[in-house]
């Protein structure tokens, strides 16, 4: 592939053209292959070494016996009822439990669907202020993590299986031997702790052993943000952004829409200002300065690729222009020359309505300057407020781990307890954590997997998944949630609470520990009825780091986000929540009952007396039911700028050679999800790579170095070197390589081992995020990367329709004018009358961030299998819903658009008419039903589908043999076998469920009662589903919008899924206004 040819091709285009890959632009043979054949040559052939004769013999025999297959007597199946059925459980009806997922120092509020005691699907908790019913990919995929058969299952000491009591005795022994030394040799290493209970437990332990230390280490954590706030204000605070109030937003390398604990909230708030309301747009404007393309950048109206090290100079120059003192007088990078003036005037024109957000990968000084700029722009108190940090105990994690390694090397650490995390794999390379750790005489590791760190520890304790154990967590705004288990630990795991309790005190259940903490925290007695108030143990201690319980105000952002969200009428979760009246309250109780029942003998048959509830229990049940502990959100606090910005540590300075930026992978994060096959196979939002990471490089830099995608290179900095293939990423900053963390694991499990390339060896303490001065040398080898960007291509057919706000105002119907009108009435089959319901979907591309949550939600809901890398290379990935990513413009700063593609459910469906066995048929509500048990696998339908949304089970992709995975599957959806076609059904199981519920209640299905899995996961509510025959439904109103258009409408397939055209809001100083006609050279 020749970059110059590519440029010539791009220069030669008339008007806007949208492309998915560089290969498609130059029309490489591989691309044409995908385009013309849907699957590459021979992909549909069976390549097993079975000879042709054997094949014919087998086929002949199967053909002869085919008819008899219907005559099989089914084997006996068992029905196993409860001995005592829990009162609230109705067999066949799922229950929903509120809980939360802790990650990276904050929690996301969730509702988990449970079928007869097994959790099967995760939804967001609509009552939770940070998630508001949405979820991200990690939360969606967590359900697979729970049932992962590769999770560690036994507690071991040097490889021998031991009981937990044996570890507890060892731990207690180690601690008591340190009693005299006040615990000088004891170190506890955790991830960033967001659990108030765990923090209190560790703090209590440290109070007994004052010289023991607690270190937190998060490899892809918020170190820079933390230190930036300390530089700016002299203390650790969290900035809470009220994105919905901001009209002009500047992102400094921040992917604030799709990462971090507040990402869901930010995305929802951002979308509230991006929706086109009727014929009127009132959009915010987003400027993004980025080293590596992100989802946030893809939503930006103006995007400027800058090298990571130049962003600091850019920020300093901008801050100086905005009147921030002490910013230093660095000249702005040349690339940003024409940006500065329009940006400054735009920001200053929106004082109090603008927002500057610094990214976690930028050095503390950039964060400090962002705070200062927000202050200078009058945004503090308006679009940004400060609260205490959400994590339980903010600390300088880099200094902490450096000190720990120093002490381990010095031999002063006697007992190292690692609670979660995988520091051997993730710690900075120059510390050589593994070697240092091996000097510690007693090391224990609690983790979900027996990973790289476990292998080097004496003790390994299997950890409970968050869906298995009691705990608690604070979300980004401080709201606490009690994490309640959905299932008993599958593998006898222990939670961090239980481990700490066992070594510090005695073996206690996590349930007991968490309840005791909250009873103390809230000052509520756990004694039932007029109990004599017991003294000290119950008295409130006013524990550290917790908001005053009397504070009723939610942080302003929380309120505002709630209002914004409520305005958009998120009926999204209603259908599900309606099924959750008081069940969770009772369920909380039943879980308690289970617990006590586990030890006691079965209760007598006579009805037990109704237990009196203690004041604490009354509250506790409500907390469990709601998924939030009330009045725990932080209140805004006043912070004062320290004015010593000059002292804030800057990042690395630009150097000769290339620059590497490290980013958490959008799929496997820092490696903790490496063994989650859903996340491994999830195409990364922008590169569409699966199962691997690669060094992302800009096409221009690649051309200069004569590299193409797949070329393996050596990256060297000093004496550190790694080997990794490159991937050409349009929009990447020049001379910058983006390396995603989390790959190249050696002890991840069957799915994660051997995928991708470990980039941690280049990551040192001084260069956790950005590493300048890297030498690249080509090895001459190539590596096959499985990217799905050219799969299912609908090449060049005017699929994305974009106008600027001015163009939209001039012509609100621009999107519909861009299509070739179909020849209506030209159908052999006559018009179908849809009485009753007519299901349809509208997807608002204005707000879609391409975060992929819908894709994983669909996978979890519909039992969609993963296929593995080699099958992805053959174009056989099974995702029912894919998110197509389109570029337009030049290679350096392309505009990027995301288009979710489920089955379009055509009214004149091309697939239906070609099926020889009527396995895909039209239904009276307009769905294209897919009947698996009729399908014989001719694949004619997928051949005839213009949208390429049908997926074929070439092989038996479902794992039918692993018992733990049986539990995960949605019992309401058929598990498909080999040789069967499948596709999106609009979650027909949810439609049917709603229909039956409505009929049982003698009413019609309400708008918003049927929520598809993709819709309920979507953080921005970009997907709206409903009844088109109801003119008042949300979807019908969206479809009445002038922006609504159908893909390939000229085929007269009449798709039920339609899209909202995109209205951008560029700054006319940076992008002169042009009439739309001038852009649409060949289209329209």
């Amino acid at each position, binding site marked *: 592939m020749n970059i110059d040819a590519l440029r010539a091709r791009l220069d030669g285009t008339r008007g806007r053209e949208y492309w998915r890959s560089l290969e498609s632009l130059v029309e490489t043979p591989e691309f044409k292959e995908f385009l013309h054949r849907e699957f590459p040559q021979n992909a549909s052939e069976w390549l097993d070494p079975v000879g042709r004769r054997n094949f014919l013999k087998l086929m002949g025999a199967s053909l002869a016996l085919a008819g008899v297959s219907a005559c*099989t*007597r089914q084997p006996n199946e068992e029905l196993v009822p*409860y*001995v005592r059925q829990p009162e609230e459980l109705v067999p066949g009806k799922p229950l929903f439990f509120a809980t939360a997922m802790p990650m990276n120092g904050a929690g996301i509020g969730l509702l988990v669907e449970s079928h007869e005691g097994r959790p099967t699907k995760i939804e967001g908790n609509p009552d939770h202020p940070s998630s508001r019913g949405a979820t991200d990919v990690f939360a969606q995929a967590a359900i697979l993590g729970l049932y992962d058969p590769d999770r560690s299952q036994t507690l071991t000491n040097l490889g021998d299986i031991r009981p937990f009591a044996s570890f507890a005795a060892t731990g207690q022994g180690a601690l008591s031997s340190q009693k005299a030394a006040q615990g000088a040799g004891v170190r506890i290493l955790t991830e960033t702790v967001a659990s108030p209970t765990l923090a209190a437990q560790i703090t209590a332990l440290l109070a007994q052993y004052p010289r023991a230390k607690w270190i937190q280490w998060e490899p892809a954590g918020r170190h820079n943000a933390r230190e930036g706030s300390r530089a700016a204000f002299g203390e650790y605070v969290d900035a809470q952004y009220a994105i919905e109030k901001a009209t002009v937003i500047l992102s400094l390398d921040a992917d604030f829409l799709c990462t971090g604990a507040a990402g869901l909230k930010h995305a929802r708030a951002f979308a509230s200002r991006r929706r086109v309301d009727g014929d009127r747009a009132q959009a915010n404007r987003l400027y993004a300065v980025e080293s590596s393309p992100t989802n946030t950048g893809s939503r930006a109206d103006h995007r400027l690729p800058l090298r990571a090290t130049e962003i600091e100079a850019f920020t300093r120059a901008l801050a100086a222009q905005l009147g921030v003192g002490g910013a230093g007088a660095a000249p702005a990078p040349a690339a940003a020359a024409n940006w500065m003036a329009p940006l400054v005037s735009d920001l200053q024109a929106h004082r109090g309505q603008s927002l500057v957000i610094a990214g976690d990968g930028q050095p503390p000084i950039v964060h400090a300057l962002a705070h200062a700029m927000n202050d200078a722009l009058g945004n503090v108190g308006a679009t940004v407020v400060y609260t205490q940090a959400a994590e339980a105990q903010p600390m300088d994690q880099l200094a902490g781990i450096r000190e720990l390694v120093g002490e381990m090397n010095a031999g002063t650490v006697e007992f190292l307890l690692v609670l979660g995390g995988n520091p051997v794999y993730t710690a900075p390379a120059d510390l050589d954590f593994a070697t240092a750790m091996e000097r510690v005489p007693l090391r224990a590791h609690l983790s979900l997997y027996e990973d790289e760190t476990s292998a080097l520890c004496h003790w390994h304790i299997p950890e409970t998944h968050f869906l298995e154990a009691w705990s608690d967590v604070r979300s980004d705004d401080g709201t606490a949630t009690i994490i309640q288990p959905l299932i008993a630990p599958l593998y006898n795991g222990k939670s961090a609470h239980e481990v700490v309790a066992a070594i510090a005190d005695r073996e206690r259940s996590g349930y007991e520990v968490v309840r005791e903490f909250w009873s103390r925290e809230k000052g509520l007695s756990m004694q039932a009825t007029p109990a004599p108030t017991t003294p000290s143990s119950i008295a409130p201690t006013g524990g550290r780091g917790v908001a005053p319980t009397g504070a009723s105000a939610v942080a302003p952002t929380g309120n505002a986000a709630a209002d914004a969200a409520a305005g958009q009428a998120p009926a999204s979760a209603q259908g599900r929540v309606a099924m959750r009246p008081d069940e969770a309250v009772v369920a909380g109780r039943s879980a308690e009952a289970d617990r006590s029942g586990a030890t006691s003998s079965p209760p007598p048959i006579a009805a037990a007396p109704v237990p009196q509830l203690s004041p604490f229990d009354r509250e506790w049940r409500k907390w469990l039911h709601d998924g939030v502990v009330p009045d725990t959100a932080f209140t805004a606090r006043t912070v004062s700028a320290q004015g010593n910005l000059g002292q804030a540590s800057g990042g690395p300075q630009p150097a000769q050679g290339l620059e590497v930026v490290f980013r958490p992978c959008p799929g496997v994060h820092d490696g903790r999800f490496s063994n989650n096959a859903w996340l491994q196979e999830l195409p990364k939002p922008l590169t569409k790579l699966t199962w691997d990471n690669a060094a992302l490089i800009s096409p221009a830099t690649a051309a200069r170095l004569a590299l193409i995608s797949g070329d393996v290179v050596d990256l060297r900095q000093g004496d550190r070197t790694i080997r990794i293939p490159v991937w050409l990423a349009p929009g990447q900053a020049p001379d910058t390589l983006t390396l995603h963390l989390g790959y190249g694991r050696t002890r991840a499990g069957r799915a994660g081992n051997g995928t991708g390339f470990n980039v941690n060896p280049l990551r040192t303490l001084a260069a956790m995020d950005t590493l300048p001065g890297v030498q690249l040398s080509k090895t001459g080898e190539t590596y096959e990367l499985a990217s799905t960007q050219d799969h299912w291509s609908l090449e060049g057919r005017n699929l994305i329709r974009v106008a600027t706000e001015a163009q939209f105002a001039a012509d609100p119907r621009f999107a519909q004018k861009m299509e070739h009108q179909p020849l209506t009435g030209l159908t052999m089959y006559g018009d179908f009358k849809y009485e009753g319901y007519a299901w349809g979907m509208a997807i608002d591309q204005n707000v879609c961030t391409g975060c992929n949550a819908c894709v994983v939600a669909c996978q979890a809901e519909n039992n969609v299998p993963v296929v593995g890398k080699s099958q992805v290379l053959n174009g056989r990935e099974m995702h029912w819903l894919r998110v197509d990513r389109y570029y337009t413009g030049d290679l350096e700063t392309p505009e990027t658009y995301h288009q979710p593609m489920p089955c379009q459910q055509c009214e004149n469906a091309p697939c239906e008419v070609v099926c020889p066995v009527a396995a895909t048929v039209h239904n009276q509500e307009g769905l294209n039903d897919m009947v*698996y048990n009729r399908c014989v696998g001719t694949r004619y339908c997928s051949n005839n589908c213009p949208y390429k949304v049908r997926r074929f089970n070439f092989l038996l992709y479902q794992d039918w043999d692993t018992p733990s995975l049986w539990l995960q599957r949605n019992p*309401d959806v058929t598990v498909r076998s080999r040789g069967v076609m499948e596709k999106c*059904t609009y979650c027909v199981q949810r439609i049917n469920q709603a229909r039956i519920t409505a009929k049982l209640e003698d009413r019609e299905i309400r708008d918003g009662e049927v929520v598809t899995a993709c819709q309920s996961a979507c953080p921005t509510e970009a997907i709206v589903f409903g009844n088109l025959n109801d003119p008042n439904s949300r979807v019908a109103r969206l479809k009445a919008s002038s922006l609504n258009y159908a893909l390939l409408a000229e085929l007269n397939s009449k798709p039920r899924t339609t899209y909202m055209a995109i209205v951008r809001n560029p700054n006319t100083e940076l992008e002169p206004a042009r009439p739309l006609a001038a852009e649409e050279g060949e289209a329209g």
Partner: protein
Amino acid sequence: MPQIFHRSANTLAKVSIAGVLLLAGGVIGLIMVLGRSSYVTRASEFIEQPLQFSHAHHVGDDGIDCRYCHTSVETSSFAGIPPTKTCMNCHSQLWANSPILEPVRASFRDDTSLHWIRVHDLPDFVYFNHSIHIKKGVGCETCHGRVDEMPLMFQQNSLQMEWCLTCHRAPEQFVRPRSDIFTMGYRPPVPQEELGPRLVKEYGIQSLTTCSTCHR
């Protein structure tokens, strides 16, 4: 050159062609008959259970309502198999020492479930919902037969798709008033030709025959 084949070979050839056709037709017919036979569908076949529970006794003799044990039949897709606790409601008092009930007592004592053999077993790609059928006036008896006369439970009908469709295509032939859903030995008070269409209208019964009604 003499004739290789005797004149009778003509007849033989014709007969064998006809014979092959007949045989093929016969085999196909056999397969079709076999596929619908109770050998395959397991209809009318008594199933040996871990405990010889008699519906004839409990329903027919004692007159216990279906819903006493199958509690979720009106609210859920699954009618519900009673937990051991339900058995013990009565059998902690009645026949409390009967040897035949020892498995029930053992289950309750040891907290281990009884393992029943499923009698009505639909394929895994079929999704049946009890509650909506009850709501729309389909009697228990319509599908399950005279349970009150079954000492051991057996499957009355084939449960094959064509059997389902007889009702889904023409529900008026089978629906009954909601008051008689749980009645055994129901006789329509007025002729079904008159009652059926009236109930279909009154209960808003749709003839749902699209595939995704049951397959998804």
